[in-house]
């Protein structure tokens, strides 16, 4: 192998990486347990009204208008620009509430108020969604575990799924830490992170599998390093291009997909790291060796012969 001299010793840092990952996961769980996710309207139920004022409207005035009309716990923030105001009420008292609030705002505003959107979600709906979201993630993990165990080997499946769990927990932890709204679009992003992280883990695992068969004289430790070095080019190019698109989405996509893009950026960042330091690391911890692939070898050989 001509590139052998340039092999990067990724696994030299595996101890440090393990500590870092465990620390980050624990910290994320800690934050999730204490601070919790700032669930958006989709999950909590309530009423959300986004309006556009003709002139910039001080939020203080909007708040006092609302509390004057008896809406005590309203959250009032700017959304995008200082003429765009988002009002969130914790309870969806009734579907009529939205219209009443809008009327209150209109009555008190010095200029035109345009309604951009009203959303009302009943609390039972939110509860159901939360269950459904959790179920989707769990189901996805199980199916992935089974598929990889069949196509590769159980150790690879454990590695890939561990990487997925790692990525999801850290992304959620980051959301809880910063306090960004966690709504349905962000849930979609988390699921996309699963897809992406999986893609990355499989590419790395696939190369390790291939090299384990090919480089029979090497120690598993070296095989992993060689594989990671060989795939580094691709890993960076792919993460890089996807990041380019995501940054474009985050910057130009508007407020409604902003948090979606942020979740993906964090998730893909962590996912790229985890495909190296979780998957490969776990494979070494589980003492992956040529022997693990004996059965697969025949099957793999056939596939390699395909045009």
């Amino acid at each position: 192998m001509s590139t052998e001299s340039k092999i990067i010793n990724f696994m030299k840092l595996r101890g440090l990486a393990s500590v870092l990952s465990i620390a980050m996961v624990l910290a994320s769980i800690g934050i999730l347990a204490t601070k919790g996710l700032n669930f958006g309207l989709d999950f909590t139920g309530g009423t959300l009204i986004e309006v556009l004022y003709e002139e910039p409207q001080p939020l203080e005035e909007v708040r006092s208008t609302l509390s004057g009309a008896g809406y005590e716990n309203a959250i009032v923030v700017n959304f995008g620009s200082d003429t765009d105001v988002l009002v969130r009420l914790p309870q969806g008292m009734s579907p009529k509430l939205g219209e009443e609030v809008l009327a209150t705002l209109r009555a008190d505003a010095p200029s035109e108020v345009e309604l951009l959107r009203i959303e009302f979600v009943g609390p039972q709906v939110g509860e159901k969604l939360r269950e459904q979201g959790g179920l989707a993630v769990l189901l996805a993990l199980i199916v992935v575990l089974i598929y990889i165990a069949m196509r590769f080997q159980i150790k690879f499946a454990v590695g890939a799924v561990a990487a997925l769990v790692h990525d999801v927990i850290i992304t959620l932890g980051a959301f809880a830490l910063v306090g960004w709204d966690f709504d349905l679009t962000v849930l979609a992003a988390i699921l996309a992170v699963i897809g992406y992280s999986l893609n990355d883990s499989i590419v790395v695992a696939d190369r390790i599998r291939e090299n384990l068969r090919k480089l029979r004289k090497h120690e598993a430790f070296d095989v992993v390093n060689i594989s990671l070095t060989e795939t580094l080019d691709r890993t960076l190019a792919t993460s890089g291009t996807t990041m380019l698109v995501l940054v474009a989405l985050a910057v130009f996509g508007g407020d409604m997909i902003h948090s979606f893009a942020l979740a993906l950026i964090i998730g893909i960042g962590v996912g790229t790291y985890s495909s190296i330091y979780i998957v490969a690391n776990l494979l070494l911890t589980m003492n992956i060796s040529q022997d693990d692939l004996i059965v697969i070898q025949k099957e793999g050989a056939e596939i390699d012969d395909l045009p």
Partner: protein
Amino acid sequence: MLNKYPLWKNLLLLAVLGFGLLYAMPNLYPPDPAVQISGQSSGMKIDQPTIERASRALDAAGIEHFGELASSDGKSGLIRLYASDGQLRAQRIIQRALGDGYIVALNQASTTPDWLSNLGAQAMKLGLDLSGGVHFLLEVDTDAAIDNRLDQYTTGIKKALREAGIRGYVSLADNGEIQGKFRSEALRDKALSVIRKEYTDLTAQRAEQSDPENFDLVALLSDTKRKEIEDYAVGQNLTTLRNRVNELGVSEPLVQRQGRNRIVVELPGIQDTAEAKRILGKTANLEFRLEARYDAPASDREQFEFRNPGLGEPSAWLERDVVITGERVANAQSSFDENGMPQVNITLDSEGGTLMHRMTRHNINRRLGVLFIERKSRTRYEVNEAGEEQIIKIPYDEKKIISLATIRDALGVQFRITGLNAPGEANELALLLRAGALAAPIDFVEERTVGPSLGAENIAKGVISVQIGLGLVALFMVVYYRVFGVVAVAALAFNIVLLVAAMSILGATLTLPGIAGIVLTVGMAVDANVLIFSRIREEVRNGMAPQHAIDAGYGRAYVTIMDANITTLLVALILYAVGTGPVKGFAVTLSIGILTSMFTAIMGTRAIINLIYGGRRVKKLAI
């Protein structure tokens, strides 16, 4: 030969590309703002004179328009406008000019050339977050439907036992059990056999004795019957809501069942949620009941107030037994009687007619009451364990008498309700009856409204970010992989065309998360090419001859790409199955995108690279 595709493969690719371009094309034609006219009732024809009347009204108001036409079946007409800001005004003007018999709705008229639409090519539908409109999620109170049915059974059993001369006490318990108490074991067993014979939907059996004096039985609704009633209630409500949505005049509404007892209603282009909710949520129903006789036992009669208390009595006693409900009403129209008073002419369906006839024939000179039932809710404040005040909505039915008239003759399929105060009231009643009654009450559990300007802004931003993202990716690929990068970018463009074509053909709806899904697909599609190209590069670096390096690169990367994409596809399919709303929209574009990107990134790029490098001597690859 190495790196040369057989002719059929190249032809196949060309065919797919052509097909994709053709079916993606309708998306390039922006629709014209338009106003759609249709009749209030299904029998009404929209003919050329009607359209001309409407267009003259527009001319008078100075709204520019073009391309009026009536559809071939005469059910609707369409007037195209030059500018969308005149749409709302045009709607109002036409509505005023044509009068109440017509439904005038905002619409988007397709500008896709005929030859394309004849091929079945249509533009993608836009989700409410992109087009603006209202989304409602309604929950059908199926428990109420079951309670209602149990009530009917209880009444029926009482009557059947009375006719069979079996004395006993039958009542409906709160847990949904019909309980019977009898003086002797023989009576109980006789009652049991009557119930078993006449009510096969119920499972009746002996029950434990509650006291030594009584012998008990209990009858339960079977689970399958219970489910049947629930399904019927949801199905009936679905039909009713569809009818009511039609009354609203929305051009492309969606009314769909979701899960066990929920119904989704989407009304694109509607801004006035209050009006929409008023019409949709009208949980009004009618019940026809006989006036109770003076000597009727208290348990058989109920007192109701009049809806419009006139000069006469403020309330009346009606029998508990219902002759028919509003569900049996086939048609209803408001008009005026001989004395110029508003009335509603009602036509029942055949079963309703039979029931009505049987009942009225024996009760001539008694009075028949019409009860108007409206679902309302009252608010109660409760403090929960955590000390927070909770607002609880308790729905209840308000039942009031709208008419109480003496039966002069046996009534049949057709009769009329008089005694209404105003023509407006008669109109509203007729509309509600015509649109059908709800089989069970509905509650609004979710509502989302997106303004049209926000929708347009979402589209614009989505498109711009996708363009910028794509541009950056293309730049990177060309700089990093040179000729191969150019090929990959071409394949990426091909991929997006195919994705759009597939979504258009499948009739999938594009939403904001869907746009995000497309973005992620772009990332994944690029990944396949990056995998292949970096492999080729690696092989070249290891000293492999160019032609073999290309072949090896594609061959080895193939397995990896398959594994990676199949797992992602599995995840996308799970998302589609489990998810709702945005998650589903995202899953649709992602799964279609994975399929098209595997095709273009593997076969597509290979074909182009084969055309460039295949079948000739190559010393060096531009990679």
